[in-house]
């Protein structure tokens, strides 16, 4: 995934308006690009070509259905470990070796390793976390979500 900002003149005002509009949702109709075009006074082809270009430029990371993995029966848990600095690489290797570790970040804090466990069954979460504790000799703090607040995040393009 592109992690560098695009040059400021890469997107024109219409591209930006389109990016903002498409964050709000995409019609579930036979000709959704035409519908977006009608709202924005653009031709269907123009909408499709602009979205293609935005995707090629890396301005869009995904375009399609966003799944609620928990609603499909998975289980997730944010976990954290305070890793001694001289053991960081060793512990990282042990943690990352578990396929249930979906992502893992180093953060600037005494609790310096934060990762998400993603399992098919809720009962597996504690098993995997216990195994990581046994392998590393370090406490794995577990922060399952109690409540999620949906999500006003929009990037203004």
């Amino acid at each position: 995934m592109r992690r560098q900002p695009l040059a400021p003149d890469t997107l024109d005002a219409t591209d930006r308006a389109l990016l903002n509009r498409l964050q709000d949702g995409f019609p579930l109709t036979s000709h959704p690009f035409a519908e977006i075009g009608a709202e924005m006074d653009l031709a269907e082809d123009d909408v499709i070509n602009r979205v293609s270009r935005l995707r090629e430029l890396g301005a869009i990371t995904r375009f399609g259905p966003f799944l609620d993995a928990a609603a499909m029966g998975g289980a997730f848990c944010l976990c954290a470990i305070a890793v001694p600095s001289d053991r960081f690489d060793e512990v990282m290797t042990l943690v990352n070796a578990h396929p249930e570790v979906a992502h893992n970040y180093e953060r600037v804090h005494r609790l310096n390793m934060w990762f998400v466990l993603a399992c098919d069954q809720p009962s597996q979460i504690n098993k995997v976390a216990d195994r990581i504790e046994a392998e590393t000799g370090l406490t794995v703090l577990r922060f399952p979500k109690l409540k999620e607040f949906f999500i006003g995040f929009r990037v203004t393009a």
Partner: protein
Amino acid sequence: MSIDATDRKILAATQAGLPLVAAPYAEVAGWLGLDEAEVISRLDAMLSRGVIRRIAVAPNHYALGVVANGMSVWDVDDTHAETLGAQVGALDFVSHCYLRPRALPDWPYNLFAMLHGTDRNAVETHRTAVRDLLGDACRSDDILYSSRILKKTGMRLSEGA
């Protein structure tokens, strides 16, 4: 909440992205041997059941210059945490917002909110805005900036399972 094998095929076919053609749902239907109306009605049903949160674009916030982020964490009075959490989650610079259990004594924080901005100053400005919103209900807070991505495979749906 469950999905059947046909739902799963539709999700697997579209999770890398909808095809950029005039009739994308008809195109997906053609790949799977379904008709367009069934693809649309199944997607619609999964939206209403919450299996699909939305059908939309995810902008690459790095490409758009929103390159700084921090995990802000807050010790919020339990009696107000749900109400205030909903208000924090609705802010447009907050991408994820959760209530989680504390891990005392190591970790007093129960509200987690990921803050995004064009630089770290912008993130700190957002943090001040959250602090103002929480007011006296918040006893202490911290922010954890990421220094390295150690692993990122994300969640992928297998076609079979």
